[in-house]
């Protein structure tokens, strides 16, 4: 197991280098440059060229790349071109909001998909099953921004409980505050703002996981040991929850890990619809302004997170899968 982890960690190195190359050259080779976009209507060409030179944009691209990557390896992502702040600081400030959003989306999706998947498997062919499958199909098919807008129109506009935009407080910190000071205000404010964006982000994942849970459960229920358990005279409840569910969960766990990465990507759309001040919006705005340092660092961080989560899933799979554990 240790060897496996070390090998996988070493595998991360070429991944990082590859991602850094792709990200750097894609954004730099795209037409449009940050200074022209920054200076607006009135700058002269000479002024533009002088400003470009102070940022080193007059250097050959490979020189710029090595300078940037060298600094990045030491944890220095440089200064944002437009925001005169360190990129590390900007990313750190925003990452929390996006991680919170993705976690909540994942939490909601598990909360709904696992019981629903089990229920539909047990009632296969019933109207509940049919209904849930249809809803799941619709859920996978609906674009996230549309789900977001519908939630805003039907819930946000009709119930004061759901704010229409923004993030007034962090739910995580609110929960922490609640347990230390018993003041729930921050937690509630955080929850109210988080719930609709999290639902719209998590809808597709919920639908996918429901279907996966259902088929996995059906497969497990057909297996011999379940029949044996039933034959022993155990109650349905014990058979399902004690014996079948644990095994049926395994593929879902794998998918949940991967989904987390996709949720980070999906946050791009959801953060715009709900004006959520997260990492995705930081990166998107930086792309349209060609704020290279933010785009490069932001994308690298997200890619790295994705790779690390993948690794964690692989490792946890090894721990969780009884076949591996009991071999």
């Amino acid at each position, binding site marked *: 197991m240790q060897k496996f982890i070390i090998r996988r960690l070493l595998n991360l190195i070429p991944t990082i280098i590859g991602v850094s190359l792709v990200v750097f050259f894609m954004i730099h080779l*795209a*037409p*449009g*440059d940050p200074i*022209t*976009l*920054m*200076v*607006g*209507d*009135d*700058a*002269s*060409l000479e*002024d*533009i060229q*002088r*400003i470009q030179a*102070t940022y080193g944009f007059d250097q050959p691209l490979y020189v710029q790349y090595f300078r940037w990557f060298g600094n990045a390896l030491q944890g220095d992502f440089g200064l944002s071109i*437009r*925001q*005169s*702040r360190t990129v590390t600081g*900007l990313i750190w400030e*925003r990452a929390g909001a996006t991680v919170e959003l993705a976690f909540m989306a994942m939490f909601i999706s598990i909360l709904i998909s696992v019981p629903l998947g089990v229920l539909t498997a047990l009632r296969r062919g019933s109207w509940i099953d049919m209904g849930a499958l249809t809803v799941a199909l619709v859920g996978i098919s609906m674009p996230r*921004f549309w789900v977001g*807008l519908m939630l*805003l*129109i039907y819930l*946000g*506009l009709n119930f004061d*409980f759901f*704010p*229409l*935009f*923004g*993030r007034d407080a962090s739910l995580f910190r609110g929960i922490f505050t609640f347990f230390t000071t018993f003041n*729930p*205000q921050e937690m*509630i404010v955080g929850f*109210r703002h988080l719930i609709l964006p999290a639902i719209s982000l998590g809808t597709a994942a919920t639908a996918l996981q429901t279907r996966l849970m259902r088929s996995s459960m059906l497969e497990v229920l057909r297996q011999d040991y379940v029949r044996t358990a039933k034959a022993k005279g155990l109650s349905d409840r014990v058979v399902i929850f004690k014996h079948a569910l644990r095994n049926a969960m395994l593929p879902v766990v794998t998918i949940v890990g991967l989904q987390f990465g996709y949720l980070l990507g999906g946050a791009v759309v959801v953060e*715009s*619809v*709900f*004006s959520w*001040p997260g990492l995705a*919006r*930081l990166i998107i*705005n930086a792309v*349209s*302004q*060609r704020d290279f340092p933010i785009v490069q660092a932001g994308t690298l961080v997200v890619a790295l997170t994705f790779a690390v989560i993948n690794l964690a899933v692989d490792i946890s799979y090894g721990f969780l899968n009884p076949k591996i554990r009991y071999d």
Partner: protein
Amino acid sequence: MQKKLGLVVLFLAFLLIWTGGMAEAKTIVIGTSQEAMGLDGRVEPGVAEAERGNTILEALLCFNHDMELTPRLATDWEHSDDGLEITFYLREGVKFHHGREFVAEDVKYTYEWLLDPDNNAPNRSLYVDIEEIEIVNDYEVVFHLTQPNGFLINNIARMNIVPHDKAEELGEEFGTRPVGTGPFVFDTWRRDDRLILKANPDYWGGAPKVDELQFRVIPSDSARLMAFEAGEIDMFQSGIDPQEIPRLEEDPDINVGRVAGPGYEYVGFNQMSPIMNDYRIRQAVSHLIDRQGIVDHVLGGVGSPAYSPIPPMLPWHNDNLEPHPYDPDKARELLAEAGYPDGGFSVSLHTSDEDHRIEIAEILGYELGQLGVDVEIRVEEWGAFWERIMYTTDYDMYILSWHGQLDPDRATHRQFHSDGGRYDYIYYDNARLNYLLDQGRIVPADSQESLDVYMEAQEIIYRDVPYAFIFYIEEIAVSHPYITGFEVHPYHPASWENAHLFDKTN
């Protein structure tokens, strides 16, 4: 089970208590589509930056709702007879937010900083005619110019004065927590979320009527409108889906403010293109633009047909002209005259990815197609589109806009003078027009000569069609009736600069 139920009930009770009845300071919340990059107009000249910055910092002069210059930090100003000096008399007793009095030294510092090439101020070239700034005393300052520049004063009205001590102390950080003389004081800023400003009780123009001003960023147009209708934001300007406008105007609980703005959208023709080089073809294109139809059906009635680069609100605007009529037969004749009776050539039409521009491009592409011209419409992301127009000649036609045309020189010289600098991306060269535009800078701005020069210039542009003007921009803002003291400003960056007069009466 009982215990769990108890916990849930307790939680819900908390929820009810804490979500209801929280006392709040009197706050006006302004929605915006775009976050500002910084709040220092010296380095960030965009609209999003200026509309926020102008509530914290102030310029020597400002534009009123009729786009006339009015005193702000200067109480009066005068040009010398030879046009080489402008004297400003500064308002006395004005305090910066950190407590120090505003004096002539701050004016001198601001402009000298701006003119120093090492500071990379993007708008430096607008002010290069300023040779020296002389402090007469704390409340009087003279700008010495290298040559007469009758329109420099308009640019001075756009540059906010920074306190020299704080600007030096904060350096680049100044744009992230500026200190000014304005009605509101910088408090906190969480990017892409909110900017919170507190009332300045000592403001020289009278203390604001509300305690707090917030700018909230909501990038999605539909979400912003929903937040407005739900009362979560009190007002916003621009970025309203044209289809929504009739409904909003009928709603008695919403105030829709509209005013003609100093800008327009147009089709630009690349003179390096062998086809677009022919004025008859350019005229033909202009006659294929159904301007009123576009205003009515693409823009929801917001805007008006355009025919000149100088906006109608300015005295230099030529009222004798009128839009080229939509007339496909005339266009066909013009094409025939140019040697293309059945069309038979292809051109490219470029635009950025704004919905209404894409629609206009499609309409124009269709109209030209009817005359046998093959139009390739290419929609590009803003940065890529901008780079193409700005730095390449790889296009025939494009759709773009000009905003903030505050004087006839800004509205014509950069665009149509063959030596117009980097904005001359249509490569237009007309000797008579060049001469007129040069003259326009030399003659006094308030003279009959100035009017004559620009009247003729507009006639040439009208005939020769380097641009086919589509529509004049109309500024549109929505606010709730409980907001008083607000009137939409033709110049968007100035919209909230008098926010100390706004009140919230609910």
